[in-house]
């Protein structure tokens, strides 16, 4: 199942992982009392890494589509759409790491 459906699920699975990562970073930073600047840096780095991971997934899927050429299925194309949507969702959902108060 995963073997065939991963193009459809990859993007938003990464979004979900980014969610867990950043939520945990937010919480643990407050719990262990990290310096605000360090905490903010960690969050922003997490945000950029998430975007990079999504962008990477998109590039991989585009390359696969090109390589498959006419053998590509419509599921491959739908998967690319889903990953683009997940990339945009990542940019918006975790954008607040740039400015929102982390611990109050």
């Amino acid at each position, binding site marked *: 199942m995963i073997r065939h459906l991963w193009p459809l699920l990859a993007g938003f699975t990464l979004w979900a992982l980014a969610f867990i990562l950043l939520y945990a970073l937010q*919480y643990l930073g407050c719990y262990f009392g990290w310096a605000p600047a360090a905490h903010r840096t960690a969050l922003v780095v997490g945000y950029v890494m998430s975007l990079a991971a999504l962008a990477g997934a998109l590039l991989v899927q585009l390359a696969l589509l090109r390589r498959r050429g006419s053998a590509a299925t*419509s*599921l491959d194309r739908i998967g690319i*759409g889903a990953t683009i949507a*997940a990339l945009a969702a990542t940019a918006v*959902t975790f954008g607040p790491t740039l400015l*929102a*108060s*982390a611990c109050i």
Partner: protein
Amino acid sequence: MSQDPLSPVALHKALTRIWATPPGWGRLSAVNHTILGKRFMMLALVFFTIGGVLAMLIRAQLATPGSAFIGPELYNQIFTMHGTVMMFLFAIPMFEGLAIYMLPKLLGARDLAFPRMTAYGFWCYLFGGMILIVAMLLGYAPNAGWFMYTPLSSGTYTPGINADVWLLGITFVEISAITAAVEIIVTILKMRAPGMSLTRIPIFGWYMLVTATMMLIGFPPLILGSILLEMERAFDLPYFDPTRGGDPLLWQHLFWLFGHPEVYIIFLPAAGVLSTIIPTFARRPLIAYNAIIIAIVAMAFLSFGLWVHHMFTVGIPHLALAFFSAASALVAIPTAVQIFAWIGTLASGRTKFDVPMLYVIGFFIVFVCGGLTGVMLAMVPFNTQAHDSYFVVAHLHYVLVGGFVFPMLAALYYWLPHFTGRTSVYRLSIPAFWLILIGFNLTFFLMHLTGLMGMPRRISTYPSNWGWDWLNLLSSVGGFLMTMGFALVLVDIIMQFRFGRRGAQNPWRASTLEWAMPTPPPDYNFAALPAVTQRADQLDPDALARSLAAGEGYLGFARADRQETLGVDMMTGMPDQVIILPQRSFLPLWTALATGVFFLGLLFKVYWIVPPAAVVVIALFLLWPRALGARRNMGPIDIGQGEAVPADGEVEDNVTWWASRAAVAADATLYASLLFGALYLAVVAPGWDGPAPATNWLPAIGLATAFGASVLARRARRLNQAGDSPYRWLLGGAALAGLTALACVTGMVLLGDATTHANLALRFALYAYCAIHAGIAMLIMAHAAWRWREGFVSAVRATDLRLSVLWTDYAALALLPAWALMVLLARSGGAA
């Protein structure tokens, strides 16, 4: 190989003899999806009526200020039951029923993958629902709100049986949600007409595939939460008690981690209905099929990232709120994509109008409003004002009535001719529509204002000097208008069943497969299964109906008294197995009754009866596979059209294997929720300052024996593949798994008094989870050994051995994080 062709009538008689459900008491043995789908929907309508009466009591009480019609104690039971009944006993079972009835017909199969599971799910739904309703009639209904927030729902503040009724009754009902989810997933992926590739399935199939997957992941957190809360209430294990290392917020996280996806779990099937009905009336295929698939996948994921918007006021830091706020707002985009796909379909078609479309228009008006207020509530500052006020009551009814009830009414009128084979004569549906639409908006539109004017939820009376009087009175008037509308709908349904005119087979000129059969549908759906060569929402059901009835297609014959349907490759839709389904049986009923005894024992705290009831349930379940499986290899069997494929027992990729993996996924989600809960309490909860008892070596011993069992299971599978006897290895593995369970139980006993602190209570839960799963692995291996001895297992009929590997692996893997977490808990302090 090929059979002699029968005449359509003879074929119908032969297939009916195999697939029919006997009359009289025999009805209780029904496993047929057409019958059970209808039963689910009818029972859901009964509960809808009950929930509606409760709503009317609420509106009667609130119509005037200072009302003394029902006091707060009764009022609390009533609003709790209204929410509970509508969510758990109406909405979820209603769409499950529709999916159970519809899916095989839309996909071109003769039944669902596990007919007896459908029946078991139905009985669990009926009995669990009855526990709640009977308790209500006796005055012991739950009264802590449908959200059951602790500590209010804890033993201290709700000492009676009321909260237990909710926790146990709902968990009982949820069995049916999990079994339905597994069935739906496996059926969509594996049981379709030949040639129906994954990108050719009708869009309703995609909607239900995503919905069922969400159920599989969304329900376990609530089931876990209910188990933990019931353990707190029954045995004083302090998971949510802040004075002993628990945290009430853990309940809220678990509840809403279920509760918000739940809203989309309810909406998506309704959207699937709209995506099916609208193209029929627009007389053109749905536009943007691919964009809709992306939209529903996006919705499914996003819906798991916004549960905290029910918790914006609990004191979570702003950054975390911002994540959830953004996700809550973003979910509007896939919704908008679907709305415009529907409008675009209407705009580019040649739309005709009939009763179902009336309700579709109602959907648009009401749901778009609800969506817009949803975006408002996603904004944190506004939410802090509107939260728990009547604004939210208005919003949620706009979303749920707009996004579920109106589409379901459209579905009802669209498919009633299919259920009954009749068309409506009296057209009560039209005045009913106007009553519902006007009554609904009168009731709930004003509530937005009532809420903004400061009226909080869940109060049974209010003073008359705050300007809420006229709003509440008009809301109550609207509520009664709406009720009249729903009453008319119910009358209309009964009239159509009783007095409807015999109608055309495909009255709406639809182009999906469910109309390619006589109506009301025969027990076997299709006399032959069609070959599909294009997207399955663009077929010609009338022509297909004639040729299929004549047996032209796959499996167009009755063979050896077996209920046969086809299994296909998940992606391509090419047939790869003949699925032999179990026939009617009373076993699901007996098993559900035994399950009921188990739950009633817990409810009435008659704990001595609980273990024997559990043993009976397990023993009954072990009887289920006896009706299935073969004692010899059959090899490829003829499926018509000159093709032959093996029976499902002889292929690796069969429905049992798929269902087991789906069950493991749900189980793992439940476990992940438990692990999350343990970490959450250790990090967040107050009162974790003192020293904690160290952990011992029992988890390590359990881990060693569990991995041993897993190694033996693999060895057994390899030996069987080579044609050698796996018997002793299976028994050895079962013994090792039993030792694992024993180690875990010993661990539970040696913990000491787990009621002193959540730290110990969590270890207790981890041990219990691992013990239960080691026990399951033991049972499955021992059962496989028995099946091998009875001759059901061969080198190709190896499903039992593959299941042994799956469950022993899972039992072993579950122990790893349990051990790690126990080490962590021993270091994180707390048990004073």
